[in-house]
């Protein structure tokens, strides 16, 4: 995080001299003193580690995401035993019906979910920052066009486009018989989120840049002959890190729950790709008959999003010295 925050400050600071405290560094120090931030960051790191280490966990756990244990289900297809079949062998029990292990599917689903959400958040933030920055700095017709694009994106119904586009694209790229690799579905999801997710970042950055572009340090750089690239990247960007980072930290959980929401209307990833979202969607039907099936994926989702929101809040506070805490 240190590195990220300091990117904007340019040249690395040589060690061994009085080190200037960049605003990013100050934020980092504030963040380190914030216990909530630390705890939520630790939870997030844990989630990331679990997602990254999924194959290792599978090896250690001895059960794959596609293995079925239907013999441990009763006649209705409900898991036998306590709390949805929780046991030393199956930490979180079994899915009703197919009888797959919830724990390992959760681990793999987390991996997919994280990848989708983080990549989409990076992309949408990049698009938003670039468009918002350009529109805010240059103003004029470009600003009008970007504003209009924002309105258009907001007016396009996200769910409908997603619903219509997913099967269409699969057909275009893979015909009707070829196996559609899971990465394709993941890619489509990322693209959809990125295309629809940039508007808030763009608005934020645009507003920030409009406030900044009249500042004299920008004029100073222009008077020195700086070009558009230098102005945007070297002068303005370092001053918009805070809103960009914060909107990124809020975009990730939004996309995590978004993936689940898409499953709700039948878009998103299809079997057999383990998907966090679809798992939650399916589990909700079992709220009465197998609450454990809801609890584990649902609890994980809530914990993940909660940690992200906590961290995002802490980050915002840390980056904004005016905040009252």
């Amino acid at each position, binding site marked *: 995080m240190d590195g990220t925050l300091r990117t904007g*400050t340019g040249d690395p600071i040589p060690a061994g001299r*009085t080190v200037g405290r960049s*605003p990013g560094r100050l934020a980092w120090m504030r963040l380190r003193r914030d216990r909530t931030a630390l705890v939520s960051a630790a939870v997030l790191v844990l989630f990331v580690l679990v997602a990254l280490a999924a194959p290792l966990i599978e090896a250690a756990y001895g059960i794959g995401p596609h293995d079925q244990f239907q013999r441990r289900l009763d006649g209705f297809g409900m898991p036998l035993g306590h709390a949805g079949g929780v046991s030393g062998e199956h930490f979180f029990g079994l899915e009703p019906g197919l009888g797959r292990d919830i724990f390992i599917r959760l681990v793999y689903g987390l991996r997919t979910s994280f990848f989708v959400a983080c990549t989409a958040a990076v992309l949408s933030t990049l698009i938003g920052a670039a468009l918002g920055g350009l529109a805010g700095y240059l103003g004029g017709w470009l600003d009008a066009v970007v504003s209009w694009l924002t309105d258009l994106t907001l007016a396009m119904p996200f769910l409908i486009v997603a619903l219509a586009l997913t099967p269409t694209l699969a057909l275009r790229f893979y015909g009707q018989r070829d196996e559609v690799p899971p990465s394709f579905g993941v890619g489509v999801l990322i693209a959809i989120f990125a295309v629809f997710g940039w508007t808030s970042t763009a608005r934020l950055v645009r507003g920030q840049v409009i406030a900044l572009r009249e500042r004299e340090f920008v004029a*100073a750089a222009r*008077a*020195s*002959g700086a070009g558009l690239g230098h102005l945007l990247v070297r002068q303005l960007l*370092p001053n918009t890190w805070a809103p960009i980072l914060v909107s990124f930290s809020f975009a990730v959980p939004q996309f995590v729950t978004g993936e689940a929401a898409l499953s709700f209307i039948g878009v998103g990833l299809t079997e057999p790709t383990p998907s966090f979202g679809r798992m939650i969607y399916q589990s909700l039907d079992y709220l009465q008959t197998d609450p454990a099936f809801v609890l584990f994926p649902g609890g994980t989702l809530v914990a993940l999003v909660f940690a992200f929101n906590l961290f995002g809040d802490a980050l915002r506070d840390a980056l904004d010295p005016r905040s009252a805490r």
Partner: protein
Amino acid sequence: MTAGEPLLRVRGLTKHFPVRGGLLRAVDGLDFEVRAGETLGLVGESGCGKSTTARLLVRLLEPTGGRIEFAGQDISRAGRRALRPLRPQMQIIFQDPYASLNPRHTAGQIIAMPLQVNRITPPDGIRARVRELMELVGLDPEHDNRYPHEFSGGQRQRVGIARALATGPRLVVADEPVSALDVSVQAQVVNLLRRLQRELGLAFVLISHDLAVVRHFCQRIAVMYLGRIVEIGDRDDICRRPQHPYTRALLSAVPDVARRDRAGRVRLTGEVPSPLDPPSGCRFRTRCPSARERCAVQEPALIRRDGGNQATACHFPAGASA
């Protein structure tokens, strides 16, 4: 360029901003020249178009009309590419030392910026040049990795000055360089500027609302009112023999030991008229103690009288009547 040629020549410079409800005539026909190594002070109340002029001179703004020649080259319509070779030769110092430094850059980065932007590599490298500049403006070179918020106001303005000097300019436009500073610091900075001007032989356009600062610093003084120059001339002429009632009013507001005993302190009454709708004829007439009918009808031209260097735009200048 011959020695007598001015470094900067401004002719009929105008800048109008289209706003709701009309045209804001911020700068409305300026004529003046600045020779190499010469210092010109531009004074006037706030809102008279000083800052706009400063930004026009370094082409942060594009003029609506008129001509700006820098080193004999017309730059009034020049694009970014055409300005590129001239940029290192003209720099600007801003009023607000807080806003003019990028809070996310270190002092070193800020001072090095003009060099990097213009792809200038000093013989000993950028770092050495930065340290040299910092020493030159009286900053500890060890502080080059500090951020603006870790400096005091005066120190920050020094950083701004160092930045302006980085490329070795021939002309520096200083827009109210000290007005945001504490009075005790103001003198230090003004002295620094004087020293630099002398040592480096810079041409300066110093813009200020404070006649005291200008008088202390500049060889020539131009007085602006509502987007126009009402009087221009050598410092001593302007200070000793102000001909325009507005100049006299400004002078009389300066606490000055030499003049304390003299009567005739001119007080300005009323508000500055809106530049959206300037008065007809002489723009100063609405506040002028000696305004007559003619002033409302005919706009006075900036005319040299007495054959000297001093020019005044007034139908009834003080010197003539005296």
